[in-house]
């Protein structure tokens, strides 16, 4: 195979389009559509007494106003609970428009449709809702006391409660193991809320064709196939009459995997009802208060360990702030509690979480999805063990590592896919060795001393993680070679800028032996591929990548069979190179893939010169069998699916050097190093891009981002002026090294890379600040103001 593109640093093919304004995002579509706007609750918890729309009806250009009362059956039902779980005993989801009670600021109450968005907002501002205020429940610890309730029928505000316990080899429970350990520590950790915050918010645009009763919906979603099923079910339409397309999507980071959003149901419904195109584009303020957040947890940790720092028992209790609703189930706290163990062999482990309702925006996965909290917990634990024993922090980690000869390694837990948490492969000691070299771990003490002599404070930190990627159930790929020799690849999952057009094309070009520029890729369009799950959990490359490879192999086999007939050669002697099927050792004997595609489809009618070769009098066909043999299909195309037995586990280790200003308490990241192992790399440049973006978001979580709710449940920083995401100026240069430990679980040997960068950053920065300051850092994010407070309390 000369067309070796797998593993190459191929430039992203989507970028010229996306960075020159040629992208088609949701709001670029439907310029003539009616616009929807929503009246949203200004209160965190209130009963709706009355809605008065009379002042709005005079707004010129107003088309419709809807409240919950106006919604028909199914549409008016609560939104689906997407991932039920036995431990989620009190799952609750919102109504698409509030019915009686609002449970967070931003909950939609009234839908307005008007000629344009300006008028829709004018009308919305004239609608008055009479609220009876109820006691807002804010703060996970206050909520857990259960004095006031978010949902009247959920006692204690506990949506879910779950315990997983893995005894030690000797059969000790974690608590027994801790009590019996030579050393024990107990501490509390806090992680603030943040959010996915894609540059492009959510958005829905629906077109109803009344003549053939079909609906086309464009949604800025991470799962068009699932939105399609939800919309068809809600609106009572046959599935074949509904198409859902994810156009170019300006970032998702998890928030757009949730579906159907109220707007994804209401906008198509209104389009059907009104017989007009309707569009809603979320604005930034709406995104802050009406989509989803993540991360907020309080963790109580007890750990017992030996003189080497080996963890004999670990007991973690987590209060997980789930906001007002649980549409995505309890995936986030499950991931936290299972991925907490990282690359370590832990003696005995017990984890208990309570998923608590509060009168705040609902919590659903955001890139990393519970893992940053998990890694913060485990890595803070490792640092505290090292500090307690006076040992090197890297050495304590090494003492706990699972070793390369121990794979597959069963952690004894049930993962987010309902399957056993079994690590498939990895090389953690080697990762650490490479990381230490990259950051200069061993020489840092002298560097720190030299800095101190100049009155500067610097510190070094590290963090390790393991990430379950490529969760099932499946993805599919369809590959078609058309008679012009072009290769059309489609898969049902969606793209939000990850570079799928490039990596999937690399896979197809490599498998089929065609030049990259002949391959085109379509994602997230149900017209092209109807069966899919979605883009989340670092799964696109693993799932669709393998499915596309398998589909390509089918096409390849078929092409070789047809070419073998045409060339009168043995298929085993054939190769495909540069889009031509060639006979090995016979340079003259070849047939273009384009011609193979023509021959693959027996024709009665020649539509062009080339097509004549496939018609009935061309003499090409064998007279001994039907033109389309039994078990065959016309056309040079193939479809296949990849469904893994369980997740594949990528891993990585990060280290940073930070400087803290002794006077101003400013925190600056001087260096940031990443060692990353996602199995075989399809495109190292794209993997590095994913890591860079992830680290940038991680820096946000470590130093900047928080959702500042006051005691009334008002979000005080619902704008980009006050919700601080790092700029390029706040993100350090990221130095990267790759390990490639192939996954034995899938044909391509790959693991996911999408979320990796974000996972350990808070842990790493906390570790480094702690090293610089000599003060425990147990809450993230940390601001200069908070560091100043820590110093004051420590008396330094």
């Amino acid at each position, binding site marked *: 195979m000369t067309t070796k593109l797998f593993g190459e640093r191929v430039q992203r093919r989507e970028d010229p389009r996306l960075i020159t304004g040629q992208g088609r995002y949701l709001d670029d579509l439907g310029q003539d559509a009616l616009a929807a706007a929503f009246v949203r609750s200004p209160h965190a918890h209130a009963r709706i007494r009355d809605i008065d729309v009379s002042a709005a009806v005079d707004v010129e250009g107003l088309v419709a106003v809807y409240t919950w009362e106006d919604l028909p059956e199914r549409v008016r039902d609560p939104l689906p609970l997407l991932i039920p779980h036995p431990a989620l005993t009190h799952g609750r989801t919102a109504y698409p428009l509030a019915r009686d009670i609002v449970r967070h600021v931003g909950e939609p109450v009234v839908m307005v449709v008007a000629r344009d*968005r*300006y008028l829709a*907002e*004018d009308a919305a*501002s004239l609608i008055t809702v009479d609220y009876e205020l109820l006691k807002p429940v804010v703060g996970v610890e206050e909520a857990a006391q259960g004095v006031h309730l978010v949902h009247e029928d959920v006692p204690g505000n506990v949506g879910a409660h779950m315990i997983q316990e893995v005894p030690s080899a000797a059969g000790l429970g974690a608590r027994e193991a801790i009590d019996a350990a030579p050393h024990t520590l107990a501490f509390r950790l806090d992680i603030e809320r943040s959010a996915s915050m894609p540059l492009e918010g959510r958005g829905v645009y629906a077109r109803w064709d009344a003549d053939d009763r079909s609906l086309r919906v464009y949604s800025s979603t991470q799962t068009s196939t699932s939105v399609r099923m939800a919309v068809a079910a809600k609106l009572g339409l046959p599935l074949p009459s509904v198409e859902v397309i994810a156009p170019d999507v300006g970032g998702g980071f998890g928030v757009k995997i949730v579906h159907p959003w109220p707007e994804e149901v209401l906008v198509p419904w209104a389009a059907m009802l009104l017989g007009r195109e309707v569009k809603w584009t979320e*604005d*930034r*303020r709406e995104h802050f208060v009406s989509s989803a957040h993540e991360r907020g947890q309080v963790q109580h940790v007890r750990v017992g360990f030996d003189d080497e720092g080996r963890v004999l028992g670990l007991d973690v209790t987590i209060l997980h702030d789930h906001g007002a609703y649980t549409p995505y189930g309890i995936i986030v706290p499950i991931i936290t509690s299972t991925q907490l163990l990282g690359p370590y062999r832990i003696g005995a482990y017990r984890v208990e979480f309570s998923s608590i309702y509060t009168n705040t925006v609902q919590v659903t996965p955001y890139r990393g999805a519970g893992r940053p909290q998990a890694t913060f917990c485990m890595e803070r634990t490792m640092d505290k063990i090292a500090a307690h024993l006076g040992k090197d922090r890297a050495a304590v980690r090494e003492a706990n590592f699972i070793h390369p000869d121990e794979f597959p390694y069963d952690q004894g837990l049930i993962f987010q896919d309902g399957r056993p948490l079994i690590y498939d492969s990895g090389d953690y000691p080697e990762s650490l060795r490479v990381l230490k070299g990259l950051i200069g771990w061993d020489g840092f003490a002298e560097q720190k001393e030299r800095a101190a002599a100049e009155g500067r404070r610097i510190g070094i930190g590290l963090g390790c993680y393991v990430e379950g990627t490529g969760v099932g159930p499946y993805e599919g790929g369809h590959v078609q070679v058309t008679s012009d020799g072009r290769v059309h690849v489609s898969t049902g999952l969606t793209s939000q800028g990850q570079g799928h057009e490039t990596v999937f094309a690399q896979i197809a070009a490599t498998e089929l032996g065609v030049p990259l520029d002949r391959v085109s890729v379509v994602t997230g369009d149900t017209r092209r591929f109807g069966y899919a799950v979605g883009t989340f959990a670092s799964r696109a490359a693993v799932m669709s990548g393998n499915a596309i490879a398998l589909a390509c192999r089918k096409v390849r086999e078929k092409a070789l069979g047809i070419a073998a007939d045409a060339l009168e050669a043995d298929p085993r002697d054939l190769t495909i190179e540069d889009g031509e099927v060639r006979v090995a050792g016979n340079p003259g004997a070849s047939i273009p893939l384009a011609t193979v595609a023509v021959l693959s489809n027996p024709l009665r009618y020649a539509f062009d010169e080339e097509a004549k070769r496939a018609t009935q009098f061309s003499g090409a066909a064998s007279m001994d069998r039907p033109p389309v043999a039994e078990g065959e299909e016309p056309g040079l195309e193939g479809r296949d699916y990849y469904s893994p037995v369980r997740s594949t586990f990528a891993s990585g280790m990060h280290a940073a050097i930070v400087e803290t200003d002794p*006077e*101003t*308490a*400013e925190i600056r990241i001087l260096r940031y190093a990443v060692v990353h192992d996602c199995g075989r790399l399809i495109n190292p440049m794209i993997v590095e891009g994913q890591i860079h973006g992830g680290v940038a978001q991680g820096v946000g979580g470590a130093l*900047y981002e*928080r959702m*500042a709710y006051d005691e009334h449940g008002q979000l*005080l*920083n619902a*704008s980009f*002026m*006050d919700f*601080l995401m*790092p*700029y390029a*100026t*706040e993100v350090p240069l990221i130095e990267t090294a790759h390990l490639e430990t192939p996954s034995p679980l899938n044909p391509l040997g790959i693991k996911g890379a999408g979320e990796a960068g974000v996972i350990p950053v808070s842990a790493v920065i906390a570790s480094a600040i702690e090293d610089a300051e000599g003060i425990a850092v147990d809450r993230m994010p940390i*601001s*200069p*103001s908070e560091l*100043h*407070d820590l110093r*004051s309390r420590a008396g330094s």
Partner: protein
Amino acid sequence: MKPSPFDYHAPRELGEALEVLAGTAPHGKVLAGGQSLIPMLNMRLAAPSHLVDINRVAELDALSVETGGVRVGALARHAAVERSPAVAAVQPLLPAALRLVAHPVIRNRGTVVGSLVHADPSAELPAVLAVLGGTVRLARHGAPERDVPAEAFFTGPLESAIEPDELAVSAFFPAPPPRTGTAFQEVARRHGDYAMAGAAAVVTLDEDLRIASARVACVSAGPVPVVLDLSEVCARRPAASADWEAVAAAVRDGVDPDDDIHATARYRRHLTGVLAERALRVAAAEAERVADGRAAVRMSEGVDDGVNHGANGAGEDSE
């Protein structure tokens, strides 16, 4: 995030702009650079029924270096002022502060006078005007223009002495006296954010290079820029032997910052002390350099400025 309906006016002459303002007051709002106003309109935090867009009033797009200072017209963009060598030569504190204002794209559009009128106590330019003792010139239909000094102009957070029918046509930033250095120091959460604390400093030395006058204006330290005269604390010593700790303590005593989601009042107070001290030290060093260097430069350029330059370049400056 779309604004409420408003009538849009786009006058081409100053007189016309003032007439419109007079006719629509108090329901009109002036649009210059729009870097604060447009987001406020879009979030419906402001809902004026008339928007008076002055961007076509050519005479307001002025920037002149006058005797004794810089006059900045209402349409002079931050970037134009920041990049003007003439401005930098006369009042270096202006470009120094402007480099800290938000980001280049905002400075390309935003105006200096607009920032003053917005009167955000966290913003750099009000502090610069305050510490320099500058003025804002206000015009009103059918009335003479009036110059309002900074200390009277800033009346509260986002509040100034401008009346609804008035237009701020320019601001005047006085040039520093001889042997004077200036500096601006701030700490923001992110590059370009409003500062959690910061200080604009002006230090003037006497002929013996002792600190004759030291003033700071602190940002995010109160409802308006907080101007503190620290001359007494500096006790007419040379910078090298001034009691900077006492200076920082005096600054901390002199400010009254608030808590917000980005920083506690306690931290802001601490930080203001640190930054005021740093700014004053830099300004004092700059003043020493100016006192020293000005003579040297002028001598080498052969400029006859009536100054008697000493052989060591530290001549007496009699301007």
